[in-house]
């Protein structure tokens, strides 16, 4: 019971921390990768506390895959856009020496959107991997209960 309550309570802060790590990555420790893993751990906690069914209501099975490839696509887009502006792949804007646009203390630079792509991909991957293992575990259990006892032993 305690585990369940704490798990449920922990999910929003986990995601907020992940977002924080992601956004502040350019100034302080942390980046898209760490943020993705933190968010993934949040999901893992839900699995441990509530089991597969309830998590899949929260996060349908197709979502991790979609997130992974959305992240991939975002990163590729950030990489490819400079080509059309006449720069090499993965040139980030604004160029060195110019002042970026500030949003509060947050700087708007394209490198961050590349990092967001990495975050989506890593989060999608972690959640997806957990889902796959959970799925395999359930299949195993189903097979064990379905098969005759002498084979299961």
């Amino acid at each position, binding site marked *: 019971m305690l585990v369940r309550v704490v798990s449920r309570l922990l999910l929003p802060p986990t995601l907020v921390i992940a977002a924080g790590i992601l956004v502040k990555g350019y100034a302080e420790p942390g980046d898209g990768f760490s943020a993705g893993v933190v968010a993934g751990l949040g999901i893992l906690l839900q699995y441990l506390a509530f089991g597969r069914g309830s998590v899949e209501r929260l996060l349908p099975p197709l979502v991790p895959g979609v997130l992974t490839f959305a992240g991939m696509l975002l990163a590729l887009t950030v990489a490819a856009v400079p080509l059309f502006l006449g720069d090499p*792949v*993965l040139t980030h804007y604004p160029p060195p020496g110019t002042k970026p646009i500030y949003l509060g203390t947050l700087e708007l630079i394209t490198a961050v959107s590349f990092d967001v*792509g990495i975050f989506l991909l890593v989060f999608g991957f972690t959640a997806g991997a957990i889902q796959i293992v959970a799925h395999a575990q359930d299949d195993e259990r189903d097979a064990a209960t379905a098969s005759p006892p002498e084979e299961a032993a």
Partner: protein
Amino acid sequence: MCEHGYNGAHASSRTHPWRADRRGEGPALIAAAVLAPLVFAILAAPVAAAAGKARAGLAAPVGAALAGLAFAATLYGWLSGGGVVDVPWAPTLDLRFDVALDGHAVMYSLLATGIGFAVLVYSSRYLPLHLAHERRPQTESTRFYFFILLFMGAMVGLAMARDLILLFLFWDITAIASYYLIGYDRHRHESRYSALMALLVTGITAVLLLIGALMFYVAYGTFSVPEIAGRVEPGALLVTAGLLILLAAFAKSAQVPFHFWLPRAMAAPTPVSAYLHSAAMVAAGVLLIGRVYPILAQSDTLLAIMSAAGLLSIAVGGTLALTRDALKQLLAYSTISQYGYVVLMFGMGGKYGAVGALFYVIAHALAKSALFLTSGAVTEATGESRLSRLGGLARRMPLLAAGSGAAAAGLAALPLTIGFFKDELFFAAALAQGGFFPALTVAAAVLTLAYTWRFWAGIFLGEPSGETREIPPALVAPVAALGALVFAGGVFVGPFAELARSAGATIYAGPVGSVEPAYHLDLRPENLMALATFAFGAVVVLSRRYWRGVALAFARLGELAGPDRIYELSLRWINRLSYQVHNYEVRDLRGRVAAVLVPAGVLIALGLAATPADGVFEFGGVSGSDVPLLLTLLAASVASLAACFVRRHIMLAVVVSGSGFSIAVAYAFFGAPDVALVAVLIETVLTLLILGTLRLIPRGVLQRAAKIPPTYLRRKVFTAVLAGAFMMAISWSTLSQGTPEQNVAEEYLRLTPEAHGKDAVTVILADFRGLDTLGEITVVALVLLGAATLLNRGRLP
């Protein structure tokens, strides 16, 4: 995370990369005209596949439409003058997206898309019959169209690319597409074996192309073919690198001694064979030779090698073609021989050689695709695929006989067909070369005449045998159309000669304007050689009884000791070796770990033994502020030691992760918070994953695995001590070294504020080495896809 490569976007100079070599028009317009054929050709495969998914019957018409569009776009681009698009997309690695719509590119693009169109029309009727015959669902046709269109796209890309790395990319796509096409009847062992052979022979030699490209890059600092051609000097480097590229091209064009994969590849459905032989796979080899010809032609050695390989292929292919009974086998050996002509002409060189080789490719593509489609139609109508069981079809299928008759006449170089001019240029090149060449070329032409007659006469003349079925007109129409083209080329050779000349002008340094194939009603040497060919050809056809035994003996010799046999033996041998290594390595998990640790330990030991040890292992001072660090390291050591004595798997997982967490804390004390954060996260995920996996394993198995026999134990202790000791030695010596003067890390730290960042690690990942990161995340995404597919029993989730 990142090992090498420095994509310093901020450090590179900012030059405008869109460079167009045409005056008076906007660069965007030229770029559109140049890229249009490539875009249509590359889009064809995915679009047709999507259409085929919606309705199985849609893939063929949609694909054919896109092939037609690509053909039209190429023609438009050519008539409006062509151009170049050159985008240096990763300038620090000197990688460029450099494509040109020059004469050479236009010629091969027109062949790939034009013949692709004809083949698609034919397939739309042939494939349903084929699938019904093989008892497969009609929905599988989409797969066929996807790969044949992918092939077409790769060919157009290959034709236009001028950057060696880009060439290599498209080169490999053609190899992959050919694998799936040759192995299209995947339930047959023969198909799979042939597909793998084609992939191995052309795929392994493709690596030679890459090595050759890298050698040129190291020497001249560029991958661009025109730039290398301008800088290259005769010498050992040119011969070596050029030979490597030539070998890749020979394998693709099925030249001796790599020819053996081509007859095997006849396991593919007939439209695939028609396409592979005339305008795609095999043509790719001579396409590559043509593209790098400005480089190769600067070395007489390379030209001589080409002549030799070409002559050998003509002789071997031609002789074996005379012995084959199966229609498609005969045509396959004929292709080997015909591309031998092309390679020989490149080798003989000169303006006639260069233009003649390209003209030959056009003439051969038209004639050979028609003959392949004929063999498919004949087999569909009679159910027979062997010459000895066919005959007398001329009266029952007059249109097919006429169309393939024109094509066969073209291949045999009879007057009033486009083929006459291919031999005229062939003889002209030989005469310019002098020596034995004129005699050898006549002999080659005689062989061609003989086996072509055998093919056509064997099917259409003589006594009719067996019943014939009604076949759809779409199986005959492409043959008739291609035959008509072969005939039209014999009457109005102008446009075809113009195409070959403009292609020749791209690859040949001298002027080619004077190469004008035409009929001359006089006794010039070329005409005399042609007459000699016809006379000798007739003699060879009539004296079949006398030479048949010799040719068959030669074929038998090839089966016993030829390259096909060598391939089979070496494949078996390599497989056996691989199985043994595999068995030894993956017998159990400990063995696999040891397979990494023991060689690593031995290599490090050898490395340490080879370097001087003076001042390499030093103790630094210890101050009071180091106490927390020492404590964490102590904790890590204790946990590691404890892991040696724990029996239960769950305990083991916890203890090992304890050691990992201690190391993470040590990173934090070292002032590397980014690394510490990642280490903690990874350790957490890993621990949970191991615990989750342990739950999947039955308890009994775990208990049995926990008991280790003593001999086993000793081996494991040895492995652990060896690896651990030398790993410690190398860490110690590394940490004893002072920081080098020129430190890349300092450069990164200096540039970080310029890239609007404060945290160097993140900036490195997202900016300085972004290209590496991009590659890594691609791998991550593919791993998820692969794992999900594996656990889903081989299907996409």
